[in-house]
C-alpha cells in the first residue's frame, strides 16, 4: 500500500476538514502552486514550438479528463470521444460566427450543447454494458461525423469552418503567448472541478457504480441516471476542449478526428491511469510528447546504422503509430494503473530511501 506510507510521520489531522483537503500534505500543495506559477512564466521562456506543445497538452488533457470520468470513474467505455470533441469545436465556431456572442461565452456554451448531445447518446448507452456499449459509442462517433459532413450550414461540409480568435469584451487575444493563459485557466478550472466532484456525493456514486453496480443500486443510487450523467459530463469536457481547440487553430475540420483520435484519448487515460485525475494530465503529456520525442530520436540517429536499417526518415510516420500501439500494450501488461501509480511508487521509494525495508 503506497497510500498511507506516503503520509509523513507526525502529520496528524485534528479536524475532518483537514482530512478532506485536495492535497495530502501542505508541501504537495505548495509544490502544485509553484508548478502553476512556473507555468504562468512559460510564455516568457518557451519558443513558439514548445508553447504550442504545451497548449495541445492542455486542451487534450481537458478532453481526456472527461473521458476519464466516463471510463476511469464510472467504468463505462466510449470510443466516440473525438466526435464530441469535434462537436464542441464546430458548435463554438458556429455560435461565435453567427450570433453576437463573444468567444469567451461561446466556449462554455459549446460545452453545454455538447453535454446535451452527450446526454442524448447516453440514454441508450446507460442501459448497455461491455461490448454492446463499445458498439453503441462507435455508432455515436459515426452518426456525429456523418452529421458534420452533411450539415454544411453548421460545419461547412468538406470545407473547414473558420473560427474567430478568442475575445473578451472587445479585447482580442492574438498569438500562442496570450492564448496559453486561456488554456491554462481552463485546465486549472476543469481539474479543480473534477477533483471536487470526485470527493462529493455524485462522484462517489459514479465510482460505486464502477466497483459494484448491484450494491450501488441497493445503496440508493439510480444507475440509469448516473450512467447517463457520466456521459453528459464526459461530453461536456470534450466540448470545452474542442471549443478551445477551434479558437486556437482558428479553423475546424474533421481531419484527424476519426475513430483513431478517440482511441488516442483512450490511450491517454490508460497510460496516465484510469480513475486518476493527475494521471490524466501525465498520460496526455506522454501521448502528445511521444511523437515529438520519436522525431528527436530519429534526428539524432540520422546517418547511423539504425537509421540505414529502418530508413527512419521515410518511415517515421509509421513508426510513430507503431510506438503508440506498443506503448499501450506495454502499459496494459506491466502498469495497468498507469503513470499515476508509477509516480506514487517513485515517491514512496524516495520517501523511505535509503532504508526501504
Amino acid at each position: 500500500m503506497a497510500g498511507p506510507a506516503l503520509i509523513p510521520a507526525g502529520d496528524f489531522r485534528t479536524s475532518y476538514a483537514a482530512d478532506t483537503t485536495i492535497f495530502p500534505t501542505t508541501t504537495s500543495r505548495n509544490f502544485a502552486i509553484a508548478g502553476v506559477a512556473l507555468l504562468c512564466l512559460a510564455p516568457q521562456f518557451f519558443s513558439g514550438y514548445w508553447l504550442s506543445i504545451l497548449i495541445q497538452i492542455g486542451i487534450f488533457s481537458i478532453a481526456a479528463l472527461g473521458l476519464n470520468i466516463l471510463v476511469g470513474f464510472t467504468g463505462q467505455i466510449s470510443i466516440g470521444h473525438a466526435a464530441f470533441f469535434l462537436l464542441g469545436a464546430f458548435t463554438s465556431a458556429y455560435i461565435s460566427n453567427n450570433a453576437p456572442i463573444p468567444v469567451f461565452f461561446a466556449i462554455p456554451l459549446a460545452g453545454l450543447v455538447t453535454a446535451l448531445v452527450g446526454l442524448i447518446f447516453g440514454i441508450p448507452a446507460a442501459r448497455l454494458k461491455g461490448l454492446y456499449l463499445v458498439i453503441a459509442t462507435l455508432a455515436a462517433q459515426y452518426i456525429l461525423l456523418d452529421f458534420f459532413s452533411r450539415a454544411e450550414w453548421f460545419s461547412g461540409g468538406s470545407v473547414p469552418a473558420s473560427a474567430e480568435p478568442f475575445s473578451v469584451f472587445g479585447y482580442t487575444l492574438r498569438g500562442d503567448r496570450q492564448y496559453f493563459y486561456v488554456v491554462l485557466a481552463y485546465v486549472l478550472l476543469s481539474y479543480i472541478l473534477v477533483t471536487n466532484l470526485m470527493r462529493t456525493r455524485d462522484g462517489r456514486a459514479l465510482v460505486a457504480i464502477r466497483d459494484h453496480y448491484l450494491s450501488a443500486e441497493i445503496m440508493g443510487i439510480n444507475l440509469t441516471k448516473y450512467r447517463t450523467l457520466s456521459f453528459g459530463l464526459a461530453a461536456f469536457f470534450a466540448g470545452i476542449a474542442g471549443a478551445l481547440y477551434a479558437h486556437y487553430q482558428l479553423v475546424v475540420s474533421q481531419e484527424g478526428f476519426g475513430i483513431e483520435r478517440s482511441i488516442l484519448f483512450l490511450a491517454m487515460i490508460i497510460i496516465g491511469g484510469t480513475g486518476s485525475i493527475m494521471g490524466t494530465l501525465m498520460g496526455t503529456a506522454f501521448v502528445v510528447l511521444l511523437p515529438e520525442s520519436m522525431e528527436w530520436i530519429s534526428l539524432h540517429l540520422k546517418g547511423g546504422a539504425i537509421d540505414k536499417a529502418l530508413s527512419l526518415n521515410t518511415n517515421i510516420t509509421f513508426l510513430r503509430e507503431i510506438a503508440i500501439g506498443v506503448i499501450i500494450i506495454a502499459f496494459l501488461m506491466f502498469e495497468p494503473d498507469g503513470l499515476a501509480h508509477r509516480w506514487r511508487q517513485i515517491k514512496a521509494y524516495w520517501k523511505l530511501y535509503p532504508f526501504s525495508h
Partner: protein
Amino acid sequence: MATSLEVRGVSLRFGGVRALTDVSFAIREGELFSIIGPNGAGKTSIVNCISGRYKPTEGQLFYQGRDITGLTPNARASLGIGRTFQNLALFHHMSVLDNVMVGRHHLLKNNFLTGSLYWLTGARKEELEHRRKVEEIIDFLDLQSVRKATAGTLSYGLRKRVELARAMALEPRLILLDEPMAGMNFEEKEDMARYIVDLNEEFGMTVVMIEHDMGVVMDISHRVMVLDFGKKIAEGDPATVLADPHVRRAYLGEEDEVLVDPDDASHAQESAA
C-alpha cells in the same frame, strides 16, 4: 406494535424453477426477525424481493403500509430499507470511509454541480457534517484503524463489518442482513451478534436476518421463520419453531434419542456398571 413490513402471497419463478411459493409474513416494527432454512430454500430470494433486486412473480410487499412491489431498489433505499449481502459486495477500490459515505447517498443533497463548486455551495459543509455521522458508525463498529484502507485489501471479517457499516449509514428503519456471520470464527460471531442486538435495541432498527448458526438465531431473535423448498413451513418464537417437527425434519435434523438424550445415556452407563 405497528407493522414494518408485510409480505403478502409472494411467489417467485425463474422459468420452471419455483424459488418461492405463496410466502406471507409480517414483521413488526422494532423486531429482530430471523429467516432460516436449508440451502436453496429461498431465504436470499425473499430478501432480494424485499430489497428490490427481484420482482415477485405474484404477490405484494407493503412497507409501513405502503405498496412497494413496483419500486426500484434505489427508491426502496430512500424509504429506509438497507441491506448487506451474503457474498461481499463492497466497492473494492474505494476506501472504507468512502464505502460508508456512499451509504449516505440518499441523505446528502449536493449534486454534481454544487459538489464541483465545493467551497462555494455549502457542499463542503454538508460533506463534513455527514462525515461526522459516518465516524460515529465507524466508532460503533470499531473500524477506526482501517478507515483509510482500500476495502478490497481487508480481511473477510472486517469486510463483513464494513458492509454492515455501509448499510447502517443509510439510517434504515428496516435492515436486511444476509448471513452476517457466515465464515466467521467464534469471536467474530460473538462481536457481530452484539452489533446486531445493538442495531435493534440501541438504534431501534427492525432487523431481518438470514443465518445458519442456530445458536445465534435462537439466542437473539424475537421471532423466526423457516423456509423449505420456497415454502414457509413455520413461524413463531424461537422455542416453538425449534420444537416444530416439520422444522426438525426439514432443517435441524431429527435427533437420535438413544445416543443424545442425557437421561438415557446415564441410565445406559449405570446398567452397564
